């Protein structure tokens, strides 16, 4: 049993599976974006080729930079992203790690991941890195609160702070449209879903909020001075974060892997349903990423604080009101 448990952590549905899934999802995002822009797009294994090539390259550090930080933070980002992937409900509503309040521990790890980018850019003694890291941390500060609020709203619907319990509740809610209040909940649900999708674009530094590594302007932003394996780890943690956030949104908003009792194939069907829901979220992300153009950092911060945050707050209050008076 012990060996099985260890295998679960390291192979399926643990670390190795998360890495494979994130490479595939990254390819899917790139391919979808390319097809929507009328291009052909990369071949299936391209993200893996990129990763392998970067691993084989040498490390080059700029003068007067803090080498220890440049060496440590990619490892930190990768391990944080890998830890986050252990919370994900993949073959059952319960992730490998599950405890009360793990939703907010997940968000805490996301915060660590985002703010570590600031130190990376700052310590690399490069003007592009410096300005990129400043932008990255501004966007990080702006999307974190709407994302947390929208997830808090969903946690309120399920009356739990545990990812597995929220997933179970949301998987069941589609079949039990009992009262009028529950149908009314669709309004704040869709509002919070859109808000969390937009905030996810900020977390992944995708297109409307990609000012942190604006390619034509500040080279690669906070990762300008990264080379070789360091860059590979940062890229891989970016891939992993795509998986983490899309699976989390699929779980919390769409119900993730439900529990159907179909005898022998229960786990397989659960896994399949999970995949379909995740792909839906990834498609939505790629779609928004493609149709939008990059905002300036002040525009994106303003948009998040002025419009996204009040909307998220309104959604949470709407949920509380419906629960109080609608009998949901």
């Amino acid at each position, binding site marked *: 049993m012990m060996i099985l448990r260890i295998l679960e952590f390291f192979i399926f549905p643990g670390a190795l599976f998360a890495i494979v899934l994130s490479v595939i999802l990254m390819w899917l995002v790139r391919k*979808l974006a*390319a*097809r*929507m*822009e*009328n*291009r*052909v*797009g990369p071949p299936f294994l391209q993200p893996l080729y990129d990763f392998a090539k970067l691993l084989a390259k040498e490390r080059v550090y700029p003068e007067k930079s803090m080498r220890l930080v440049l060496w440590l933070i990619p490892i930190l980002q990768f391990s944080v992203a890998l830890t986050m992937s252990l919370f994900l409900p993949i073959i059952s509503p319960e992730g490998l790690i599950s405890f009360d309040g793990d939703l907010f521990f997940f968000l805490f790890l996301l915060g660590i991941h985002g703010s570590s980018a600031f130190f990376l850019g700052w310590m690399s003694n490069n003007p592009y890195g410096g300005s990129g890291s400043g932008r990255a941390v501004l966007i990080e500060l702006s999307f974190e609160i709407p994302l947390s609020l929208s997830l808090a709203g969903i946690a309120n619907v399920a009356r739990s702070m545990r990812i597995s319990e929220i997933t179970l509740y949301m998987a069941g809610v589609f079949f039990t449209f009992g009262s009028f209040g529950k149908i009314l909940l669709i309004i704040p649900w869709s509002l919070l879903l859109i808000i969390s999708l937009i905030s996810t674009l900020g977390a992944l530094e995708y297109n409307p909020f990609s000012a942190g590594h604006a390619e034509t302007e500040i080279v690669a932003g906070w990762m300008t001075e990264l080379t070789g394996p360091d860059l590979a780890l940062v890229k891989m943690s970016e891939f992993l974060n795509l998986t983490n956030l899309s699976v989390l949104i699929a779980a919390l908003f769409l119900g993730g892997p439900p529990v159907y009792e179909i005898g022998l194939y229960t786990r397989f069907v659960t896994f399949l349903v999970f995949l379909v829901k995740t792909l839906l979220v990834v498609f939505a992300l790629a*779609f928004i990423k*493609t*149709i*939008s*153009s990059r905002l300036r950092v002040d525009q994106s911060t303003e948009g998040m604080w002025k419009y996204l945050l009040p909307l998220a707050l309104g959604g949470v209050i709407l949920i509380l009101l419906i629960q109080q008076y609608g009998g949901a």
Partner: protein
Amino acid sequence: MSITKYLVAGKTALVNLFSKPNTVLFPNEMVETSEDYRGTPVLVPENCTLCKKCERICPTLAIKIEKLGDVEHQFIIDLGRCCYCGECEAVCNFDSIHLQNVWMTAEMDREKLKRISTVYKRRKK
């Protein structure tokens, strides 16, 4: 950017998703050029009367007509100098020079860019 522009962009993206990509796999396929594309100038030696109008009008001195024998002339079009302006085609009264839609002209040697053809002077009737 207003919301309608986002809607238009979204519709375009969805249409593109289900249509054939614009990308062309170059050495095997090529992008089709338009009818009046100005590519390499090609001489039709049968029509040429050696009036040398094209040699005079060529702004980059790409056309050179050299006398070899009594009736034999060498008509040299140097693609390395040619700027594909189409003046020679416009000035020719006998339809003997055309800018065709051939655009792959890369060579390893500059001398190979010279397109040489022989023109025989016609006797006056």
